[in-house]
């Protein structure tokens, strides 16, 4: 009998992640790639890559979508479950570390802290109006130093006496960093200083007033940077675990949630969607003064779904339903 798989896709602001899990919930295939501004294209590319990695007679028994573009992607690929990334990350974290009590999930533009007790989410916090405690902060600083994330990570680990950097705001961090360079601080110390600034920012802003209990998991795109883990460990004075599949935990969680929902039959439209002409068009809904822009997701000429709008009445409406 051919093997059954469950697919999870996490479409964030910076990265598109995909996970395929097997019957027992174990990870069979995962990939992490940049979105580069076009979620639909990124989704198609990810599906194309996943298709080549699977045996030809594999069956996808369910699909889940998460991430900030979950509605768009969920409609486009035909997801059975569309779940927010906080729940998806928590689900994956509990699966890998059943005793986890705190999850730090730091992505491109969002950073979140999730408190878990006895395998259940009891509280969460999310960055508000500022991206200073997120991956974009490090991305911006790494570009200024002309370093790749891998170099950044390696350099941060070498630092012996990190340079204090004002990290409240990316703009001021840059002026402070330039100043420190000019005074003659070593680059590795500056890089570690940045990691510390970011971690401090996260702890002060996102986790303010929340109880951070061990074991602590660090996941999301930023977890690839060992300097961040080191910074959290220094600031909290306790070990921080970067779990296996830390980069694609959202997608893993989405796949687990799809498996738990056990859809019969699945709405997944198949890997061949990667060859379809997926595109969008918008129109404005005139039902109220909000005049929301509604996005229609089309496959060729047929509407496969709609999203956008504040009242939620357009979400996930299938083709053929009246406007």
């Amino acid at each position, binding site marked *: 009998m051919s093997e059954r798989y469950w697919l999870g896709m996490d479409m964030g602001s910076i990265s598109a992640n995909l996970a395929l899990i097997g019957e027992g919930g174990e990870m069979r295939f995962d990939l992490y790639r940049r979105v580069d501004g076009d979620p639909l294209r990124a989704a198609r590319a990810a599906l194309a890559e996943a298709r080549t990695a699977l045996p030809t007679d594999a069956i996808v028994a369910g699909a889940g979508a998460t991430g900030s573009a979950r509605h768009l992607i969920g409609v486009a690929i035909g997801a059975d479950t569309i779940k*927010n990334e906080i729940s998806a990350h928590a689900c994956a974290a509990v699966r890998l570390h059943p005793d986890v009590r705190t999850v730090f999930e730091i992505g491109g533009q*969002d950073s979140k802290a999730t408190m878990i007790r006895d395998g259940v989410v009891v509280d969460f916090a999310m960055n508000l109006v500022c991206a200073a405690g997120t991956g974009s902060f490090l991305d911006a600083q790494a570009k200024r130093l002309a370093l790749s994330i891998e170099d950044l990570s390696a350099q941060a680990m070498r630092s012996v006496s990190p340079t204090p950097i004002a990290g409240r705001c990316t703009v001021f961090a840059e002026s402070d960093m330039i100043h420190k360079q000019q005074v003659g601080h070593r680059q590795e110390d500056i890089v570690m200083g940045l990691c510390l600034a970011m971690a401090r920012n996260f702890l002060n802003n996102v986790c303010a007033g929340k109880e951070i209990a061990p074991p602590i998991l660090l996941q999301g795109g930023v977890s690839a940077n060992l300097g961040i883990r080191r910074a959290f460990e220094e600031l909290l004075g306790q070990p921080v675990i970067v779990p296996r599949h830390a980069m694609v935990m959202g997608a893993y969680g989405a796949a687990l949630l799809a498996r738990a929902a056990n859809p019969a039959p699945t709405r997944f439209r198949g890997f061949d969607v990667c060859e379809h002409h997926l595109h969008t068009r918008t129109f404005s809904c005139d039902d109220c003064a*909000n005049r929301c822009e509604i996005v229609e997701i089309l496959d060729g000429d047929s509407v496969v779904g709609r999203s956008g709008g*504040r009242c939620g009445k357009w979400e996930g409406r299938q083709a053929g339903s009246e406007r």
Partner: protein
Amino acid sequence: MTALAMQPWGNYAVALAASVECLRVSPWTRRATTPETLRLGVEASPESACLPFKACTGHFIKAAMEGVEYGVMVNSRGTCRLRYYREAHQKILDERGWKLRIFGLGYDGIKPPLIRHFDPDPIPFLQCCARAQQKTLAVDALEREVWRVRAIEANRGDATRAMEACLADLDRARTVREIRACARTFAPRFAAVPTDSRRVPLRVGLVGEATLLRDRFLNHNLEEQLGGLGVEVSNFFLLGDEMRNIFRIGFFSRNSRWTLRRIARPYLDALVGGHALESVAHTLRCAREGFDGIVHVAPIGCMPEVSVRPILQRIARDTGMPTLELSFDEHTSSVGLTTRLEAFTDVLRQRRERRA
């Protein structure tokens, strides 16, 4: 006819419109801020002013653009910056050359300035007040129906559509008798909305700053979003209760200021302005009455509401009832908000399942 602009107060716009008829002016109001009025307001207001301030500025500018001569706004006493807002709005309008005069609803003598200016005859005035009061109570009742039905409606949007139909009828009702008759049709109309009886709604209280609680545009359709997630909300800003408190009626009633002060006392024993004390009291009472959670909304930089946030966190810790804090300004993204609301309802549902 002379026109009078009133702030957008959600569904209460219908009641407010009825309240000014006796002044021989035509009411100019909106149910919610619009993208256009907000843009006008953001342009004209100081950057650091709060969201309701900007929305209100924009609303009055839009009114002035359409030739409205007068405006009226709540201009509370107490320790909130709102007491200066009338002057600030007026100054902005004057500086930009708009000829719109804003009346505050404050006390500076026996008659409020608005009444002094238009000087209505006493009997029509009282009749008009009675009609406005009846409409306010009718909207209160309508809101309660919508919250209940929206969480269990079989087809998304049915409850909102029923509400719109009721409001349109209520707007047409002229006499106290008609208004009461109209209000009696609400319950049967909502009973006719097809519901999904298998769904067990979560109960969540909405507390916080009044403008945000009422303005569907500013709060990104918070009530509809929560309703769609299967949550029966209780929005604790009801104008009927507010009126009673303003006119000091019903000292011992459930939501009287006196009752709420008594409830809040163990955590907050001072007035901190706005509706912050009410937020604390309602949160405590919700915990006692077994609500699943609380959503606290505040504009970024709202002094009263921000100052009670640590208290709300403390209540959440002491009672174990989860609280979600939402802050809004003109840059707030709907995506982040939806993510928070979805995750919050997940937390509440899991919590309920575990306790069962």
